């Protein structure tokens, strides 16, 4: 079992005593920052959040849980296409969602749907994307850029936007959210390097859900954490317990403030676990070790946050039922709207490729209209 199997390479290098002062090494093995222990008790500095905000965080987590569940059903019914489950990763998503400001932008992967909804993305538009339409909600309005399918590419977009914000003296931050697998892509490193050099107003958040399809994160790299990859680029790297929404909120908020005030980007690794399949096209039984999965089931972020709220008298069964019903109603309402969206005619594609369609495109559009 590979649970928490962090240090893998020996920290000492026999024969290299002579130049030990010349050998790069970590000051200390990283400890994930944590505010809530897995049982919901407080073990770190609580962020300054109101009771309503704390409840709000959890309500979004419940929303995420049920959106995921419903989406899996919809996929089985053939009403949406491939879905990437988010079960188990709710805490990172809500922590980030709450920490961001209205003027901030997000360049997401496909596994931050809750954050996107918190940022104001219309769920109907999102479900239409999964039904097989393009991205309907204008990112210029929502600050939510289309989900990125090309692993890691969006890191550069966030850094580029964050360079522009600095130049434009805008108090905005661009956030890229990526998976553990994305840290192996060259673009990830090029982005952090540019970010560090140009002090980009950007934050890069890794949802380390342990898997990149079938590859365990400890096989993705020989480094002992993903956060320490920041050191290659002279920017801070922080490891946070990704199943602790308050810890994620604290760290992302700090990183956003830091970027906003011109101190440069931060890399954050949120350690979490993908409790479901990679996507609805995947069979995790082929590769996920059951005992690791079980160990992480016990670390379910929903359990943790609910216990924390219950301990403070901020949550009970009635609230849970209410939150669940509210979530399901939202999803169902949004799906209904999505399915009622009039199908955009295919010929519109010819007008949205370039600002002004080429002769070729116009001729081809006529071809399409003639043939059909």
């Amino acid at each position, binding site marked *: 079992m590979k649970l928490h199997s962090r240090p893998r390479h020996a920290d000492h290098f026999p024969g290299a005593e002579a130049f030990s002062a010349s050998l790069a090494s970590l000051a200390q093995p990283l400890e994930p920052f944590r505010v809530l222990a897995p049982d919901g008790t407080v073990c770190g500095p609580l962020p300054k959040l109101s009771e309503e905000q704390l409840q709000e965080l959890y309500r979004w987590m419940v929303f995420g849980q049920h959106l995921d569940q419903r989406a899996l059903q919809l996929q089985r019914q053939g009403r949406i296409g491939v879905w990437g489950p988010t079960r188990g990763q709710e805490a990172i998503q809500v922590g980030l969602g709450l920490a961001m400001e209205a003027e901030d932008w997000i360049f997401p992967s496909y596994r931050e749907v809750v954050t996107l909804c918190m940022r104001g993305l219309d769920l109907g538009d999102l479900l239409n994307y999964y039904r097989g339409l393009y991205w309907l909600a204008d990112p210029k309005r929502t600050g939510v850029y289309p989900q990125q399918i*090309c692993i890691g590419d969006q890191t550069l977009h966030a850094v580029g936007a964050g360079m522009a914000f600095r130049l434009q003296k805008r108090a905005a931050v661009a956030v890229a959210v990526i998976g553990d697998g994305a840290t192996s892509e060259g673009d990830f490193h090029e982005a952090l390097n540019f970010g560090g050099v140009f002090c980009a107003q950007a934050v890069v958040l890794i949802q380390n859900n342990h898997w990149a399809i079938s590859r365990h994160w400890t096989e993705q790299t020989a480094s002992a954490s993903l956060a320490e990859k920041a050191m290659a680029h002279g920017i801070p790297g922080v490891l946070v317990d990704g199943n602790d929404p308050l810890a994620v909120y604290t760290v992302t908020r700090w990183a956003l403030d830091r970027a906003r005030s011109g101190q440069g980007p931060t890399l954050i690794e949120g350690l979490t676990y993908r409790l479901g399949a990679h996507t609805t096209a995947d069979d995790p039984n082929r590769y996920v070790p059951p005992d690791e999965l079980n160990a992480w089931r016990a670390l379910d972020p929903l359990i943790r946050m609910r216990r924390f709220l219950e301990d403070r008298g901020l949550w009970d069964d009635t609230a849970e039922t209410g939150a669940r019903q509210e979530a399901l109603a939202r999803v169902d309402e949004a799906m209904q709207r999505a399915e009622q969206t009039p199908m955009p005619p295919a010929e519109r594609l010819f007008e949205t*490729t370039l600002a002004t369609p080429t002769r*070729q495109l116009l001729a*081809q559009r006529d071809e399409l209209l003639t043939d059909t």
Partner: protein
Amino acid sequence: MAEAINRALAQALEHDPGVVVMGEDVGQVGGVFRVTDGLLARYGAERVIDTPLAESAIVGTAFGMALAGLRPVAEIQFMGFLYKALDQLIAQAAQIRARTWGQVAAPMVVRTPYGGGVRTPEHHSDSLEALLLCSPGLKVVVPSTPADAAGLLLAAIEDPDPVVFMEPIRLYRSAREALPPELRSIPLGPSRLCRAGADVTLVAWGAMVPLALEAAESVAAEGIAAEVIDLRTISPPDTATISESVEKTGRLVVVHEAPRSGGAGAEVIASLVECCFYALRSPPRRVTGFDLVYPPQLLEDAYLPSVARVAAALRQVVEE
């Protein structure tokens, strides 16, 4: 077809200890399309290598391995992600022979699923063969049947130069045929005549071949006899066979999924016009994807060439 490719890979691993299979998720899980299913168990993690998520590294290290005497068969999980590896593929692997006066070879294969029609998400349906045609030192192969897939893949692995092997996703499951116990390689280069006909030459590859055949059948009743050629090797294209056919039919239609402008059909037509100009009786036509970013799932059918569009083109070139 997935099974045929799996068998070809197994046979290559079995017969040549230098062959290694590598890529994202090719080992433990057997590939996202199960094309490499079972290979890890049989040939071990040293030769069936699950890699980290980095396309340039997959192709770049495969190239380094090829230099060291191995015959890597690297997978790019979907062709839409090949862009990230083009520098290593084109500027490095494809050029090393020329840069060393023919002394250094890079025998390696880059397998990659491509093409649309199965409702995959964005970037998962691209047909990018046209990107590769203008790169000397590189071959590009696309099979349309399980037998061709197995035979051409074996030949690609045996080939002393880098080969991109495009696998039509749409045919992974739908194309089925019985194969002999011992697979034989099929030479890269020659196209395959799929259907004889005297009126028009219809060139296609990959998932467009079954479609072309269907279109040919559909116009047969109207008295149009289409000769269907499966190009199989897109680079270098088998212009000899096509021109022989065009000399006979005087008409040419090329079908491909990729956008028309700058597509591989342009090269087929341009080279055919150069050699068969006087035999041509009507202008060659292209039935292709449109000059669009591959559309989202609900609209992809409008984008893809259809039997009706191909049939219409066949009629058009005959009537003109």
